[in-house]
């Protein structure tokens, strides 16, 4: 996307989110931000810091504590010509909004015969490993990606956090953005200054390899990269960062797996009906002759996310990824 001469700044992932919001609110006066504690406080993770100061309290709004209420209100705001960017404070605290999401956010455009647009964005920190009390650790992408009418993206790097959020804000459809809170302040990288858009639906090859494709998104991309490092002496492992789950870059996925012949998919969410299952299913449908071994999934388990002293046993670890890769290679 970006030309060679673009100026960049080294930012943490959460800073890149903040940067995107500043740039997009400045670019388009119809963009507004709302959610719990996004205004005065600038968000519990400070993702919205400075917006109220820069754009006023009418464009960065603290809502009452009511996720269904303010997501529903965002639907109405779209009807009034706004492009709302809604923050859910944490993954699991988005669940009260699922009813609005499923019954309205994903269907309202359809209901108008495509004549009204609902360009809203829901962004939320997601995922585990942060040593927090329960319900601060969920990876709920399945609930969102299974819902027709919405798009879903998950950045793994600061540059993508900025670029995907900008793309989501500019997209004519509702987009849900999951931000990997585990690496909010540890993922650092060069981020293009000013306007920076990463098209939805394009995967990123995080690492090139020829023996096996590791497929991941969000915080699991780094885990896969570490696993690829650990395996370097044994195998050449490609890491594909999906970036966007819907639309999905199935071409990149299939091209990679056709080349390597082997695939392991890694996700934090519980296994059953996770997005890893979708990837496996696509391969079982479109790449059955290319597969030289089973498609394995390394995932969270079908149990409540555990108390945090145990969370490292729950989250996909480098060891579990390495083990799965070895099993496929040895098949």
């Amino acid at each position, binding site marked *: 996307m970006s030309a060679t001469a673009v100026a960049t700044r080294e930012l943490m992932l959460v800073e890149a989110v903040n940067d995107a919001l500043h740039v997009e609110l400045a670019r388009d006066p119809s963009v*507004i931000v709302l959610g719990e504690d996004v205004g005065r406080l600038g968000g519990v993770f400070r993702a919205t810091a400075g917006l109220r100061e820069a754009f006023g309290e*009418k464009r960065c709004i603290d*809502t*009452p504590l*009511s996720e*269904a*209420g*303010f*997501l*529903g*209100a*965002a*639907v*109405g*705001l779209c*009807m*009034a*010509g*706004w492009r709302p960017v809604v923050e859910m404070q944490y993954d699991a605290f988005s669940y*009260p909004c699922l*009813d*609005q999401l499923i*019954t*309205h956010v*994903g*269907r*309202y*455009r*359809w*209901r*108008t*015969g*495509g*004549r*009204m*647009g609902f360009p809203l964005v829901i962004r939320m920190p997601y995922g585990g490993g942060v040593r927090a009390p329960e319900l601060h650790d969920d990876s709920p992408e399945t609930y969102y990606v299974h819902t*027709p*009418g919405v*798009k879903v993206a998950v950045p793994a790097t600061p540059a993508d956090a900025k670029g995907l959020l900008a793309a989501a804000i500019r*997209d*004519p*459809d509702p987009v849900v953005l999951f931000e990997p809170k585990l690496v909010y302040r540890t993922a650092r990288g060069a981020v293009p200054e000013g306007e920076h858009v990463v098209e939805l*639906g394009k995967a990123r090859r995080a690492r090139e390899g020829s023996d096996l494709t590791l497929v991941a998104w969000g915080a699991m991309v780094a885990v896969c990269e570490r696993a690829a490092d650990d395996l370097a002496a044994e195998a050449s492992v490609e890491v594909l960062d999906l970036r966007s789950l*819907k*639309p*999905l870059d*199935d071409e990149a996925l299939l091209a990679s797996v056709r080349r390597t012949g082997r695939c392991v998919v890694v996700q934090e969410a519980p296994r059953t009906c996770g997005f890893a299952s979708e990837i496996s299913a696509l391969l079982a449908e479109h790449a059955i002759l290319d597969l030289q071994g089973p498609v394995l999934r390394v995932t969270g388990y079908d149990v409540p996310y555990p108390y945090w002293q145990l969370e490292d046993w729950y989250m996909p670890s480098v060891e579990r990824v390495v083990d799965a890769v070895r099993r496929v290679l040895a098949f």
Partner: protein
Amino acid sequence: MSAVPVVEQDLERVIAGRPAVRPAGLDDDALLALHRSLVRLRVYDERSVVYHSQGRIGTYAIFRGHEAIQAGAVHALEERDWIFPSYRESAIGLLRGLPASTILQWWRGHPSGWWNPEEVNVASICVPIATHVPHAAGLAWGLALKESDAVAVAIFGDGATSEGAFHEGANLAAVFRAPLVLLCNNNQWAISTPLRDQTAAERLSDKAVGYGMPAIRVDGNDVLAVHDAVRRGVEHARAGEGPTFVEAVTYRSFPHATADDPSIYVDRERVEAERGRDCVAAYETYLRDLGVLDDEDVQTVREEALAELRAGIQAAEDEAPGDPELVFAHAYADPPPDLARDLEELRRVHER
């Protein structure tokens, strides 16, 4: 006419008195326009029940007896003001210029039942209970943020007040002083569940206190009382004072929908009594008393409405069936590529 009998204590009324008194601000034309709207809704509803029994439309949510609430509200609005209907107000768009055929197609499950809300400032029919309340709050608030002076009305039932979505929408509207009228059609039933099983509050209007907004409680069979209440709510909203809760008390003396058999749960005597308090008849009597309406007028208005409906069902039935392509259309402005592949696949399989 006899006064509209007391449905409940403690309700505001306009047309109950004798001799009939003309309400301030409504001239003959306005009074007759209101009548015409009532009749158009009534006829739409009557014909829909017939069309359903003839198998020409699907399941249908009857609104007989609730025309006063709908017409009263619409006539208290300007064209630029928005209406957020539930399924119970499916035909309210008629009063904003939607063709009867569009609404009939909605009930026929035809894709042309879709309309463009922006064209008539009537939101899509809301099927899930109360979830449109936050939409209306958001739209109204959004308009105010744009410094428009338009307002919105959300219409919902007594049962809807039990849902979290109602609560969150109402609260949010009050906090943001959204220019909104929350119009509750308290017909005292949610399918088979009577009001006393829905809330322990004495009046639904009591709920407004908890949101810090004013409430008005009116006789929902009295179109002028509803009109006046909504008008006051609209003025309050337009003045930047925020939302108002209007409780319009009536009674559902017909089935919930064509599929429903209320004989299992209702008290027939009460239903008979309530049917005697018909809102259209009451208003016609009132207009006759005022000398504004005569039998011939009634006849004409009714016939026009019937003609509208006949033409509507004809148009609906004449329309070609929806293209399967529409299954994939409109969900996204910029659809993920697999939808086009799915459509191709579907065509291939079914057209061979």
